[in-house]
C-alpha cells in the first residue's frame, strides 16, 4: 500500500514514442498509390514506367547485393566530398579576405563576380580539356558548384559582423590577431554553415549532371544508363538513390554545423 502511494507521487515517465504524423504518412502513402494506379491504368507517359512494387522488387532482387550499385554510391559520394571539402578550403579564406581586405577585394572581386554567374555545368567542357583525368574534372565541377556560394556567404558574414562586437574587443586591448581569431572567425561561423548547407545541395545537383555528361561511373551515370538501356526500374532506383544520398549528406552537414555552433544548441 505504501509502495503504491510513493510510486503514484512520482510523475509517470513520458514514453518516448514519437507521435506518428498521420497527415504526412497519408500523403506519402497516397503518392505511391497514385503512382501505382497511374502505371496500372496506363495514363500517358506512365505506360513505360514500372510500378512502385516492381521497382522495389527489382531493387531487392538485383541491386541491394550488387557491388556495382554500391560502387556507384561510393564514387558519387567521393566526388561530392572532395569537391565540397576543397571548396571549403579555398572558399572560406577567400571570403574572409574579400571581407577584411579592401585592397584584395578591389583587386580580385571583379574577376570573382565575372565568373560567378556561369553555371557550374557550363564548366564541364573546359574542365575536361583542362584537367588531366576525367575524375579530376568532375571533382572540379563539383568544387565550382559549392565554391561560389561559400565565398559569397563568408564574405557577407564578415560584412554583417556587428561593430559593437569588434569595438568591445578593441576596448579590451585585443590585438588584431586575437580580434580575428576570437571575434571575426566565430562571427562568420553561422555564415559558413549557411554556405555549407547550400553548397552540399548544389554539389549533388552538379555531380549528377556531370556524371551523366562526362563520366562512366556514379549514381548519375547509372541513372542515365538505365534510360539508355530502356530499363526504367534502373532510372527510378537511381533517382531514389540520389535523393537518399543528398538527404544523408544534408543530415551530416547539419550535424557538423550544430557542432560548429554549440552556442546555438539551446535556443
Amino acid at each position, binding site marked *: 500500500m505504501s509502495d503504491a502511494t510513493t510510486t503514484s507521487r512520482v510523475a509517470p515517465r513520458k514514453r518516448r514514442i514519437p507521435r506518428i504524423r498521420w497527415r504526412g504518412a497519408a500523403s506519402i502513402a497516397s503518392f505511391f498509390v497514385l503512382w501505382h494506379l497511374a502505371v496500372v491504368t496506363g495514363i500517358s507517359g506512365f505506360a513505360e514506367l514500372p510500378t512502385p512494387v516492381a521497382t522495389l522488387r527489382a531493387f531487392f532482387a538485383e541491386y541491394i547485393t550488387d557491388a556495382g550499385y554500391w560502387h556507384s554510391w561510393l564514387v558519387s559520394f567521393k566526388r561530392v566530398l572532395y569537391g565540397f571539402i576543397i571548396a571549403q578550403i579555398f572558399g572560406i579564406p577567400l571570403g574572409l579576405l574579400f571581407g577584411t581586405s579592401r585592397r584584395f577585394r578591389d583587386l580580385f572581386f571583379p574577376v570573382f563576380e565575372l565568373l560567378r554567374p556561369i553555371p557550374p555545368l557550363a564548366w564541364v567542357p573546359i574542365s575536361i580539356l583542362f584537367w588531366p583525368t576525367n575524375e579530376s574534372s568532375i571533382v572540379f565541377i563539383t568544387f565550382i558548384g559549392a565554391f561560389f556560394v561559400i565565398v559569397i556567404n563568408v564574405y557577407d558574414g564578415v560584412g554583417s559582423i*556587428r*561593430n*559593437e*562586437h569588434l*569595438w*568591445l*574587443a*578593441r*576596448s*579590451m*586591448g*585585443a*590585438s588584431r590577431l*586575437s580580434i580575428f581569431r*576570437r*571575434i571575426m572567425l*566565430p*562571427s562568420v*561561423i553561422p555564415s559558413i554553415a549557411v554556405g555549407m548547407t547550400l553548397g552540399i545541395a548544389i554539389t549533388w545537383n552538379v555531380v549528377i549532371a556531370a556524371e551523366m555528361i562526362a563520366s562512366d561511373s556514379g549514381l548519375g551515370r547509372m541513372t542515365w544508363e538505365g534510360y539508355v538501356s530502356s530499363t526504367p526500374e534502373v532510372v527510378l532506383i537511381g533517382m531514389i538513390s540520389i535523393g537518399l544520398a543528398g538527404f544523408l549528406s544534408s543530415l551530416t552537414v547539419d550535424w557538423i554545423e550544430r557542432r560548429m*555552433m*554549440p*552556442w*546555438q544548441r*539551446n*535556443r
Partner: protein
Amino acid sequence: MGSGTESAAEELKGHIVIRDLCKGFVDKDGHREDVIDACSVEFEPGRLNVVMGQSGCGKSTLAYLLAGYVKADRGSIEIDGRPVAGPGPDRVMVFQETALWPWMTVTDNVVFGPLVRNEISGAEARQKAEVLLERFGLIDFKDKYPDQLSGGMKRRAEIAQALINSPDIMILDEPFRGLDVMTRELLQEYYLQLFEDTRLTTLFITSELEEALFLADRIYVMEEAPNNIRQALDIDLARPRSFEVTATERYLELKQQAMNLLYADSEITE
C-alpha cells in the same frame, strides 16, 4: 569645478575634458551632416554624469568618440590630461544592445579582457570573474551562453565584463533601454549601488528623465548640433539613494527644472 572636495577629486580618475569637438557624417548622396558641432563640455571624475537628450541628437556619437571607436573631425577629448587616441581598457562601454559575444560562455566573455592583454593567468582571471559574477547574481549562469540569459542578466554580465578591466571610466549608452520596468528599476539600483561603492566615473546616456534623476550627480542636456550641450543640472539628492528619493519634494523640484530645460526649445505643434 569641485564643490569643496578637492582632495578627494585628486585621487579620482577619469576627468574628461572635451573641447570644440566636431563630428559629422557624410550620407550616400554626399551630403554632410554635423552630429556634433563645436561641443565643449567637462565631466568631473568620481561622478555619475548623465547625458540626456532625444534620439538623434548625437548622444551615442559622443559616447563612441569618448570610447575611441570613431575619430573626431576636429577638437579634442582629454582624460586626466591625456588625449584620447583609440579605444582602451581604461574606458569600457556598455552598449544599447547586448554586445556579449554569443559564442562565448558568460565566464569566457568576462575573462576576455584580462586574458587578451596577458595580464593575469587563466586561473586568476576565472577567479576574478567568479567574484564578479557572484556579486551580480550570475554565478549559476557562468557556463551558459548569452542567448540563454534574460535581458537583465545580459546587462549585468556586461557590467561584470567591463568592471574586470578596472576601468577609470564606465560609458553606458542607454544600457537599460528595452527592458521591462521592473528589471530596469532593479538594474538602476544595481548600478547606483555599484557607483556609490566605487565612485567609478560614469558617463551614462539615457533618454528617460526618471532614470537620469535617480542616478545622476549631474544631468547634461544634449540637443542637436550646433548647440550640443549647453545646459546642465546638478542633482543634489543625497547619496546613498534609494527609490524613496523619488517621492521627496526636492526630487519633484528637480524634475520640474529638468523638464523646463529639456522642453524649453521644443514647440508643441498640433
